[in-house]
């Protein structure tokens, strides 16, 4: 397939891997801090995690490079209380609750949206917020609520959907807004006391919207190399190579590997739509990470009539994660998914306890479904025997 296979070329990959091996050897030799620990690189974005597992990139890398799978999967970091709010909205008899498929299986404290649908709620899976708008046009006697979630990547599309609803004068459409922002969470991770990150792969799709500028602080303030990265396997391998080259040369820069998509200033019309429809919340709750300042957005007062949280009562109850779940430690890279107490036993993709097991972009689900590491193989074999 043209313009796809070029970015998955195994021959080019082998060349880059050979150079990565050389750079790694050089870094290990020249830096005492890696005497007793691996070089830790975090891919922030769930899309990157998915690519890494889908193409088996982790085992191609030298053993002394450890990839830490960050919190950039919006489904995974959604707190249980917000899922309960979704269920409560969806169970209102007048409501058609429209959502992306990934969010259907996220467990709430009592049920998921999938279970709510089975119990009679009108939950519809859509592929775009505009599909939800079509539902609103088709069902003027019902209230259509779209479950808006995602980082800056998906904000322009939901913002434009609100603007379109306004233009058409649709008063039976609203958003349940759970959009979150990238920079505050990266800051929270870098400020975390147990964090030893040596470099970051920055999210390519978020950067497509926000541009390069918001990521300079990682290099400037935190003195960590950061590379804006695309989503094909060669993008990721090349970005790892770029990070290692910086480490080998003792640099910390913000580099843009995904320059074919990401510009310095981002997508201006998209940013304008975001600024018109959304404003920062003081705090937003993240599953496993707690409440983080300025890390979520809500709908501005000017568009309050499209805000499901203001149009309908929502319980808005904070629910603590199950105590046995160690999602937070996994998200921050403090433990590996399979080191979690419930990984693969009580928490599997079939019956996820923690959100990281729900979406295919969640680190735990990725390990469980795709992982090929010896630890994981042993675990899976045990599960097969138990069956």
């Amino acid at each position, binding site marked *: 397939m043209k313009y796809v296979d070029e970015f998955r070329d195994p021959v080019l*990959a082998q060349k880059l891997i050979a150079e990565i091996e050389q750079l790694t050897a050089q870094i290990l030799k020249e830096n005492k801090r890696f005497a007793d620990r691996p070089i830790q690189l975090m891919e922030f974005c769930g899309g990157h995690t998915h690519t890494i597992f889908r*193409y*088996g990139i982790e085992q191609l890398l030298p053993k002394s490079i450890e990839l830490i799978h960050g919190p950039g999967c919006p489904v995974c970091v959604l707190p249980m209380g917000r899922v309960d709010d979704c269920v409560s909205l969806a169970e209102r008899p007048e409501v058609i609750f429209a959502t992306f498929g990934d969010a259907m299986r996220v467990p709430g404290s009592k049920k998921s949206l999938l279970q709510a649908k089975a119990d009679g709620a009108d939950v519809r*899976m859509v592929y775009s917020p505009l599909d939800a708008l079509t539902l609103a046009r088709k069902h003027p006697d019902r209230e259509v609520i779209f479950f808006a979630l995602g980082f800056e990547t998906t904000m322009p599309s939901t913002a434009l959907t609100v603007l379109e609803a306004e233009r058409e004068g649709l008063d039976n459409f609203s958003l349940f807004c759970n959009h979150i922002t990238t920079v505050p969470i990266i800051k929270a991770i870098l400020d975390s006391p147990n964090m030893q990150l040596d470099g970051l792969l920055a999210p390519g799709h978020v950067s497509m919207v926000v541009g390069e500028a918001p990521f300079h602080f990682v290099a400037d303030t935190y003195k960590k190399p950061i590379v804006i990265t695309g989503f094909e396997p060669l993008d990721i391998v090349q970005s790892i190579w770029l990070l290692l080259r910086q480490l080998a040369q003792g640099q910390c820069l913000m580099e843009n590997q995904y320059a074919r998509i990401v510009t310095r200033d981002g997508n201006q019309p998209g940013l304008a739509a975001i600024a018109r429809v959304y404003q920062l919340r003081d705090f937003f709750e993240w599953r496993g990470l707690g409440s983080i300042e300025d890390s979520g957005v809500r709908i501005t007062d000017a568009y309050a009539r499209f805000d499901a949280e203001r149009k309908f009562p929502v319980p808005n109850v904070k629910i603590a994660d199950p105590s046995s779940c160690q999602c937070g430690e996994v998200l921050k890279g403090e433990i590996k998914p399979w080191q979690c107490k419930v990984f693969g036993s009580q928490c599997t993709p079939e019956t996820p306890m923690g959100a990281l097991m729900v979406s295919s972009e969640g680190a735990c689900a990725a390990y469980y479904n*795709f992982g090929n590491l010896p630890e994981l193989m042993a675990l899976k*074999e045990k599960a*097969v025997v138990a069956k």
Partner: protein
Amino acid sequence: MTTPTPGLRKRSGKLKGDTINMSHGGGGKAMRDLIEDVFITAFDNAHLDLMEDQARIDLAVLTARGDRLALTTDSYVVDPIFFPGGDIGKLSVCGTVNDLAVSGAVPLYLTCGVIIEEGLSVADLRTIVKSMKEAADRAGVKIITGDTKVVDRGACDKIFINTAGVGVIQKNLHIDAGRARPGDLILINGYIGDHGAAILGARGDLSIENNILSDCAPLNGLISDLLAACPDVHCMRDATRGGIASVLNEIADSSNVCIKIKETAIPIRPDVRGMCEILGLDPLYLANEGKIIIVVPGAQADKALQALQKSSSQLGRESAVIGEVKDGHEGIVILQTAFGGERIVDMLVGDQLPRIC
């Protein structure tokens, strides 16, 4: 009441009206008209002409063909009922024929249970029944008994079909998901994912246009050619819901072996691959309705491959060896990716859902 004589019974019932309504399931004259005019006329065989409540099969006909009876049933609820490359009628015959054939059985007879939502157009029903007949003829099977029910609007979606089938397994065949052994090779009879991609496209809610046709086809002819050339097939399954990933996992699990497949060896159409790329789907999990996974001893793989590729059914032209059975890592399926890495291919959980960003 006298028993009608086969072939001579006068068909008087004519279905009136353009749509099916509740009276067509009421047990009275309208129902009899529906059954006679639509089903019996189309399926056209002596068993049905008797108008008995059960088909009666001569055991001698069965025992002459083998030593075991294969019996299977499947219900069809596909949405939409018409899709590129087929419809629910064709599917309901091919699916059951294939479920029989992968055991090595020669499929002989099918039943047909139909649940119709009131309001279905008679023209659509006739088209579906005609497809069933065409598929049955192509597979060389007869539909010899059936049942029709009509339910209120909303109680089912347009039409649901159940077919059961019987076939006979020849003495020398022992095909079993538990028989895969290290050293065996794994074959498939062509492009994966066509059915799933065609259905997704036909649903229309993705606004993606494609020209992908469902691969829905009866595979008993192909399988018979394969077994003539290579009777020692160890395992064979049709890769329907859950795609080839699910079937490979079932075999790895039942046989307690590791299965290793090569991404570059798996036949897939560029259109299907493109659709999967756009939607974030994994083609290994896409449904097929005309694809079988075959496990044969390594030494016989060439012979099996040739038989598939040269089958007069034309349903194995793009057959390929896609992997092998290995020692160790029992119950696990590993994919060697085109990129050069490896990953586990697990059973699918829930539906295959597109990623959100």
